[in-house]
């Protein structure tokens, strides 16, 4: 059986590019704080979502709508409306994180399939089975902190489908629980849909290099010939106690294409590509590559070697937590 590839679309053009490049499924969000990629110039109006779903369905692809931030007290209606509008648009599922919103969706839109967002940080079978029992969740997007054996252990104890990230920006934190962006900017992916919002990011060319600043703090300084630094605290470079280095790992991007056979063996249903903030060129190139990889896997052929590093944040890649080699 072919593993499903779930591809990002920040714009209608990226959605069309992903579908044309062979995406089985595309995920996207509305242009507001209800999704975790609430970036300037990105996302879909209600009309664009309906049109995008029509286009995807006409080409045999599915559309998932991410409504994966946590509703603000007193403003829950914005999130509820997003769920209702997803069903109206004909979306194949919504990706939710907040238990209250999951409950609302299960009660009021029972026919709309519910996936659990990575933002819920559900990292063991007990909590995943709870979400399935309580809210009828059919699929969980697993956090990017699990190894392949841990994913296999989860799949052995649940009937809920699992979806794992295989390419793109690598969030090394327990998603949905990270406050680093809030600390520096007052805004977070969990509540506002923005990690290190662009409005608080500044790059400054200096005489001998480039500084990345977040919320007024310099978080990384690179030399003239080094890749531009990534503007998040978790990937910043700091000096303390006489030592200079990155806190968690060098700012590399996830690329687990060579682990597809192991992930299939571990019982994973779908492979997720991160990058709704990336261009249609990126989306198409990555999707084409991964479609070839899952088709090869299903046919029992070797996974083709990818050429995706030039598209990666930091221009370098890692297999991340799947093979835990970081410090």
């Amino acid at each position, binding site marked *: 059986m072919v593993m499903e590839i779930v591809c990002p679309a920040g714009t209608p053009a990226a959605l069309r590019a992903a579908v044309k490049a062979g995406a089985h499924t595309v995920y996207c969000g509305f242009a507001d704080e209800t999704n975790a990629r609430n970036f300037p110039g990105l996302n879909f109006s209600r009309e664009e979502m309906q049109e995008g779903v029509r286009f995807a369905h006409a080409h045999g692809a599915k559309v998932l709508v991410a409504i994966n931030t946590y509703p603000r007290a007193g403003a829950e209606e914005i999130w509820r409306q997003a769920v209702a509008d997803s069903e109206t648009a004909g979306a194949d599922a919504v990706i939710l994180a907040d238990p209250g919103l999951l409950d609302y969706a299960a009660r009021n839109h029972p026919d709309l399939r519910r996936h659990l967002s990575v933002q819920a940080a559900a990292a063991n079978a007990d909590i995943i089975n709870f979400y399935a029992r309580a809210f009828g969740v059919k699929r969980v997007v697993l956090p990017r902190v699990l190894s392949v054996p841990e994913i296999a252990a989860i799949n052995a104890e649940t009937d809920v489908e699992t979806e794992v990230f295989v390419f793109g920006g690598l969030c090394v934190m327990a998603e949905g629980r990270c406050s680093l962006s809030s600390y520096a900017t007052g805004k977070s992916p969990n509540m506002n849909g923005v990690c290190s919002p662009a409005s608080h990011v500044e790059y400054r060319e200096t005489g001998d290099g480039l500084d990345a600043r977040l919320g007024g703090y310099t978080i990384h300084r690179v030399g003239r010939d080094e890749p531009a630094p990534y503007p998040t605290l978790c990937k910043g470079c700091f000096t303390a106690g006489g030592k200079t280095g990155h806190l968690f790992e060098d700012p590399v991007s996830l690329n687990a294409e060579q682990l597809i056979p192991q992930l299939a063996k571990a019982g994973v249903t779908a492979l997720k590509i991160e990058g709704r903030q990336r261009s249609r060129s990126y989306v198409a190139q990555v999707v084409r590559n991964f479609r070839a990889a899952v088709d090869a896997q299903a046919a029992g052929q070797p996974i083709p070697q990818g*050429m995706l590093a030039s598209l990666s944040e930091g221009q370098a890649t890692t297999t991340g937590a799947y093979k835990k080699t970081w410090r």
Partner: protein
Amino acid sequence: MNETHVSIPEVPPLLARPMALAPLAPLSLSLNTFARAVARNHPGLFRRLGEHAHAKFVLDPTDLPFVILLEPRGGAPKVTVRRRSAQGDARIAGPLAAFLGLVHGAYDGDALFFSRDLVIEGDTAAALALRNAIDDAELDFAEEAARLSGPFAAPLRRIITLTERRMGICLSRPPEELAW
């Protein structure tokens, strides 16, 4: 872990240097006409700019002896070509080919930024909005120029194809099968 790098062609100095002597007013006028035609054909681009639809962008093709001041003005854009200085909310700098490749979807903006082929200074959010809006618009400068050229459209297309081939600069939307 591995590393690769996309090579971005630059305008040869032999071509760029004479432009330093050329009068800028006719170039501004042509780019203005062109930008307004693009605005007419792609109104969604300006909607997508949102709160940044009135920002000022300094586009700095580092291999040419001038900079371009782009003011979207909510859908009634104004383009001014200036010698090396201009004030704006955001400055985006890089080889001309990087800008054109970005517009036509041949290059990815983040990849160009992280590889330092493109430099962004000033209002990062405005620059990001512009990049995302342009990426969604699926622009094709060759087609836009051909539409404005009336009976000269066919020879113009030939010149554009020849220029693309000779200089490696992307002046039109690449066919998807070939691009990716």
